[in-house]
């Protein structure tokens, strides 16, 4: 069936900011959908609040709304755009939930908008636990014993009827399993049920019998409206049931099912789609299988493109999102060509002749008080994928892709903690799913425990354990060579070690040598990898898209001859983590786009399956490989690259810069030496002096005594951190000697090297400046002013451009410094400066001559692709010739706000600090500053109310300002609540508040009020770095858990009040597309 001609304008809903459970996979799917639908001649309207996405680039859709993803805003967009249809299946759970709300409120009907991809009926069938269960039973599938509850009482009744612990609790209508958990007893059960009811959009939880220890599988299914269905990819979880699939190590294809079992699972997966009523598109169906008798139970299905779909796309080469978008407009699978072979249809099931491993990336180090045990609620923030010719190789590559400092499955000198565990601890850690469990498995095998014993504790399938045991044992085989020279002379053994996936770093560790020596000798022995294609067909047909992975085998495939004038390698950012996310992928993609357009052949290397950069049509050639020196150099040499770009992918490729240079690669743009110089404190200080800008007084300490001496010299409060960090890791503000002593002692004990100590500039205004330079000309991208005062990590702070409070004189000085630093650091490419203004004086905090987190936001605000231009500069072009010589002055306001994962880590304090904690960001645009800020809050999920009850509690330093704030709030119609101190203060100024008990003072206290829905907004400011009161932490956690907006800085409150007042004047939010904003740029 050809495409539908009754549709003209289609609205695509994006997934909003990156949060745990919803990462950049939906940028990837959105980009594919936009391209596909535009390519098919439809007018595409897009809405997404996330500026760091490629999909929100003005070139991609016909009109792009960077607006909050709420029903009200979507209503405005529908009113304005009148699309014929909405495609909600490519924007994750966010888009699906929004579509459902629009449908339920009758808005779709009013505007006569059709849902394509999935009908409301089908979404309901899949998402409503009870409906889903009934449907599954009706087609004869088995389900765990279970029931759904809307209250604690109902929940208890179900628990009784199931009659055994543990029980699994899952809330309905959430993403990433928010609020779910495993309860082993009544107490845990009550707590999780309460959280689940709160997290669920329809106040529903499903309670079910535990399938802990069962094997877990997924099937990615595509279906078209003619009923043709295919399994794109099958996935087996290494971690058995009990761990959220997003937190599990997963393997494709399924490894341990016989054809009979596999085909029955396939049949049932197809039946599930048909029964749910998925007319077109991709869905994922999850299964649990009892390892002792094969009993199979359906877990759930998602009637949309998911994180697993992104993985499946990258694992097989089958572009699920693109095909799903085209199926939604009426094509059938057999009408669409398989891009990879170019000659066969998309109606087929990819055959893999390799093994794909995905390993989740966690950031528990950011949330030390969070429980690191993995369960049914997703906690990982990213993932790495690797492709190998066998399981061992694939797994080792995935582990060394994780950017956790590991070189593979152990054998890299970082196993002390695991090997040193007592038998008891080891057994406990094997039984407890965690980010490190695999390394405990290795330690167990090294200790001589056998597969059966480890199986008894982990329930990881023996198939996987045997491979792991073999790897652990093979270390001795390698070590038995004695020396690197001896290993290299036994070429067969060396080759075998490489086939097993050992990196040169591991070989160096096992043979007490250096990576460099191993690499050199290995190459001289002729043991080098060959490359295979990801071709969807296991070699049956020739692949026309060059998408490669490395392996060790007898023969490789010749690289496709370059078509461009020179080959440039762009290094991606690896797995997402806090501090390094989609922003860098955005930059890498833009570098690729710009260089391709300029006639270069672009080779992309990355290990993150969620990204647009690992889409096979972003670059000319895609290498899905770990971002290590060894792996990258093999590609560099094979492709005869003439240069490599490291400054766009964040810290990961930057860390490789010097090694690459030493290994003979040409690093393009700002030199590694200059990048290092900017990070070297002494060098940088000299440079700042030369340029004539102040820095906060500072020093470097290696011991507690040195630290104390420095602090007393420069004065408290001080900002302390271990050297070389990204994302503000381990950075704190310290007000007292006692705390400094503690921090430094801990850092020294952890082997943190040197400790950097800066005078902390209290209440300073912070600035971010992004600029671009070709070595001669430097142009400012934008000056961003932070809303929050200094002391909060720049990645966590809301920022505004053009700056709100900076005088033109200060701005001019900022510009001059930008030019000076760019010149002195010989910047070729991008540069980011962070400055602070205190009492009219500018201080330089740091300069990073590379892409920063704010580059996508700035690019979007000014309508210029900074990374694209930077890439062109790096290959020798001039800004003058590229037509970008002047800073863009914005006739509107752009605000960036951070989004936090606190809701995933119950009990973790939500207060902002110099340690970056946000996972994503949103952008809002408006002509009015207040409205722009207010929109940014709403977009970030901090849904400030227009009316209702506000609870006020501020730190002493803010007390003088609170009276004004309170008065304005009252004028806006809010009712104020406060504890005794604040209440009295306000009363003295004639402002009436309702008194509330502190948590420790009696009941009903603040927590009760919040739980009962009496408080609509919590304003609670605290001193950064001060130890928070237990009371306050509890209060803030409750607010997060109950979804009550919380504002933790006075600046944030002021900006919000301005916005609320403006909104009241104007009556409603107005929406406007990015393309329209850009039309107003000079």
């Amino acid at each position, binding site marked *: 069936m050809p495409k539908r001609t009754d549709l003209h304008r289609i609205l695509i809903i994006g997934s909003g900011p990156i949060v745990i459970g919803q990462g950049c996979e939906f940028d990837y799917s959105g980009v594919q959908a936009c391209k596909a639908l535009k390519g098919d001649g439809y007018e595409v309207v897009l809405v997404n609040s996330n500026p760091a996405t490629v999909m929100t680039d003005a070139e991609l859709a016909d009109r792009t709304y960077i607006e909050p993803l709420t029903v009200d805003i979507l209503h405005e967009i529908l009113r304005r755009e009148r699309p014929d249809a909405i495609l909600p299946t490519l924007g994750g759970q966010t888009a699906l939930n929004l579509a459902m709300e629009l449908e339920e409120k009758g808005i779709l009907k009013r505007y006569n908008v059709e849902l394509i991809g999935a009908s409301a009926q089908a979404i309901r069938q899949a998402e409503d636990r009870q409906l889903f269960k009934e449907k599954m039973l009706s087609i004869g599938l088995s389900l765990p014993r279970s029931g759904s509850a809307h209250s604690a009482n109902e929940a208890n009744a179900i628990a009784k009827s199931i009659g055994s612990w543990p029980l699994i609790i899952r809330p309905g209508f959430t993403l990433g399993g928010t609020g779910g958990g495993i309860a082993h007893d009544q107490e845990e059960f009550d707590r999780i049920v309460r959280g689940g009811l709160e997290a669920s959009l329809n106040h529903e939880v499903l309670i079910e019998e535990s399938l802990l220890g069962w094997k877990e599988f997924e099937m990615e299914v595509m279906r078209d409206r003619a009923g*043709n269905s295919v399994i794109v990819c099958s996935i087996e979880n290494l971690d058995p049931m009990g761990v959220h699939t997003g937190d599990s190590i997963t393997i494709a294809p399924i*490894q341990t099912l016989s054809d009979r079992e596999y085909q029955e699972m396939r049949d049932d997966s197809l039946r599930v789609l048909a029964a749910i009523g998925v007319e077109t598109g991709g869905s994922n169906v999850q299964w649990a299988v009892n*390892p002792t008798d094969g009993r199979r139970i359906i877990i759930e299905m998602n009637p949309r493109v998911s994180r697993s779909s992104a993985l499946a796309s990258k694992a097989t080469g089958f572009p699920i999102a693109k095909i799903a978008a085209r199926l939604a407009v009426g094509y059938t*699978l057999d009408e669409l060509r398989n891009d990879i072979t170019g000659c066969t249809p998309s109606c087929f099931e990819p055959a893999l002749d390799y093994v794909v491993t995905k390993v989740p990336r966690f950031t528990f180090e950011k949330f030390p008080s969070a429980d690191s045990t993995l369960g049914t609620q997703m906690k990982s923030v990213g993932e790495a994928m690797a492709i190998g010719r066998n399981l061992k190789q694939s797994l080792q590559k995935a582990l060394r892709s994780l950017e956790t400092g590991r070189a593979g499955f152990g054998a890299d000198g970082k196993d002390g903690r695991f090997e040193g565990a007592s038998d008891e601890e080891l057994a406990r850690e094997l039984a407890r799913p965690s980010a490190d469990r695999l390394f405990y498995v290795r330690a167990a095998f090294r200790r001589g425990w056998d597969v059966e014993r480890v199986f008894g504790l982990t329930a990881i399938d023996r198939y996987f354990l045997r491979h792991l045991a073999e790897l652990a044992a093979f270390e001795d085989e390698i070590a038995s060579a004695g020396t690197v020279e001896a290993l290299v002379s036994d070429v067969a053994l060396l080759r*075998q070690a490489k086939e097993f996936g050992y990196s040169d770093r591991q070989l160096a560790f096992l043979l007490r040598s250096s990576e460099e020596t191993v690499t050199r000798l290995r190459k001289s022995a002729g043991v080098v990898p060959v490359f295979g294609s990801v071709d969807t067909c*296991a070699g049956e*047909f020739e692949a026309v898209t060059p998408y490669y992975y490395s392996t060790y085998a007898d023969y490789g495939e010749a690289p496709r001859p370059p078509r461009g004038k020179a080959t440039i390698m762009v290094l991606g950012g690896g797995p997402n983590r806090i501090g390094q996310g989609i922003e860098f992928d955005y930059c890498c993609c833009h570098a690729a786009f710009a260089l391709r357009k300029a006639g270069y052949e672009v080779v992309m290397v990355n290990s993150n399956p969620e990204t647009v950069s690992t889409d096979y049509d972003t670059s000319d050639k895609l290498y899905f490989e770990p971002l290590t020196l060894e792996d990258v150099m093999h590609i560099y040499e094979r492709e005869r690259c003439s240069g490599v770009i490291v400054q766009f992918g964040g810290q990961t490729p930057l860390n490789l810069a010097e090694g690459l240079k030493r290994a003979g690669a040409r690093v393009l743009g700002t030199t590694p030496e200059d990048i290092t110089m900017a990070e070297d404190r002494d060098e940088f200080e000299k440079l700042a002096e030369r340029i004539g800008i102040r820095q906060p007084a500072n020093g470097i300490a290696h011991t507690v005594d040195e630290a104390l001496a420095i602090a007393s010299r420069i004065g408290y409060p001080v900002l302390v951190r271990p050297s070389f960090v990204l994302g503000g890791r381990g950075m704190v503000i310290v007000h007292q000697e006692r705390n400094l002593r503690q921090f430094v002692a801990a850092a020294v004990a952890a082997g943190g090297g040197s400790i950097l100590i800066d005078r902390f500039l209290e209440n300073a205004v912070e600035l971010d400046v992004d600029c671009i330079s070709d070595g001669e000309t430097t142009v400012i991208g934008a000056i961003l002013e932070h809303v929050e005062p200094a002391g909060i990590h720049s990645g966590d702070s809301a920022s505004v451009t053009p700056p709100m409070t900076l005088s033109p004189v200060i701005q001019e000085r900022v510009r001059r410094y930008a030019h000076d630093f760019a010149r002195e650091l010989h910047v070729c490419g991008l540069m980011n400066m962070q400055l602070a203004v205190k009492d009219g004086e500018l201080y330089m905090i740091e300069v990073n001559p590379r892409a920063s987190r704010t580059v996508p936001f700035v690019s979007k605000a000014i309508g210029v692709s900074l990374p694209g231009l930077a890439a062109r500069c790096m290959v020798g072009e001039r800004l003058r010739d590229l037509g970008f010589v002047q800073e863009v002055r914005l006739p509107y306001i752009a605000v960036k706000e951070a989004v936090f994962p606190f809701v995933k880590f119950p009990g973790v304090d939500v207060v902002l600090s110099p340690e970056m904690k946000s996972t994503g960001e949103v952008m809002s645009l408006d002509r009015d500053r207040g409205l722009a800020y207010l929109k940014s809050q709403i977009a970030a999920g901090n849904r400030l109310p227009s009316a209702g009850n506000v609870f006020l509690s501020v730190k002493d330093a803010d007390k003088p300002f609170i009276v004004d704030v309170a008065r304005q709030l009252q004028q806006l119609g809010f009712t104020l609540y406060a504890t005794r101190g604040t209440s009295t203060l306000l009363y003295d100024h004639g402002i009436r508040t309702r008194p509330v008990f502190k948590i420790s003072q009696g009941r009903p206290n603040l927590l009760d009020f919040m739980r009962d829905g009496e408080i609509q907004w919590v304003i609670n400011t605290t001193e950064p770095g001060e130890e928070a009161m237990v009371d306050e932490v509890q209060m803030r956690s409750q607010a997060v858990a109950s979804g009550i907006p919380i504002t933790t800085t006075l600046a944030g409150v002021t900006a919000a009040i301005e916005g609320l007042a403006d909104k009241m004047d104007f009556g409603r939010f107005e929406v406007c597309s990015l393309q329209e904003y850009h039309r107003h740029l000079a």
Partner: protein
Amino acid sequence: MMQHWKEQRERRAYLALEDGAVFHGYSVGAPVDAVGEVVFNTGMTGYQEILTDPSYAGQFVALTCPEIGNYGCTPEDDESRDAFLHGLLVHELNEPSSHRSQESLTSFLARHGKPALAGVDIRALTLLIRTKGSLRAHLHVEDTPLPEAEAVLRARAWCGLDGQDYAGLVTTPERYELNPGGELHVVAYDFGVKTNILRQLAAQDIRVTVVPARTPASEVLSLRPDGVFLSNGPADPSAVSYAIENVRQLLGRVPLMGICLGHQLLGLACGASCGRLKFGHHGCNHPVRELATGRVEITSQNHNYALSELPSQLELTHVNLNDQTVEGIRHRTEPAFSVQYHPEAAPGPHDATRLFADFRRLIMAR
């Protein structure tokens, strides 16, 4: 373990191809050399079904899926009474981990006396076959040394599969019956029939009498069948001229259904041509369109020969969407149809199982 690793990396066994290429590996099956034709199969499950599919007689099957043996073997998954292929080629071979497994793949291979090579660069071998077409080869796994050049010569010296009647080698020696209580009666010619075909026929409430490949049409008719089934089988259909002749005699006198070789025989009996594909279809992911409905099925395939130039009395019913080859035919006037692919799956998707019900309907319509 250490001894195993040593054998693995020494890779003393090898496969020598007629074009001179040699692929090294280590022996994991019976220690007997063999000659055969190399084909690759891209299915990701079902090695045991492949091993026991008589259609692979005379062939070395290279499995492109890299980790093999993972779920072991069980008699339930046997597709015939023996393993008929000449050898198995894999990347990695594993010990089983499955509640269904009763035997490891290594032991299965040894028990059936089949040589097998692991540690082979299957992808390179696959690309070679894709480029050059199916190749004859000598598999050397015995301990006695054999120069590679000599092995290449032996590969070249082998007569190959063209013009060879392998059906006669793998067919049942004697007639037997299944599902005696079945409502209808079908005689199934065993040219190398897979058990799951017989199971599927029985599931249609059919009593099945399986007869040897050379059973004359008259004898079949004397059994008074309601229908006759032409099974799959190995090698070259044009070499089983006796079967083509039998089909000619049966056509129009009794409803016919054919699968794979049986499909080719029906085509040849009606005057179609049959030729060799470059490297055949062996896998579980081939899209086939049913022309009448437009529906696409993902099918299990295993054949090197295909029909072409259909005569006017044959209607093309199914087409392979990858290469547009003939996948199904129906006689325009007589009750007979056949498909090139394997609706009985085993291994592979079950999308086309309903063809057995179609056969039942065809019989009932008489």
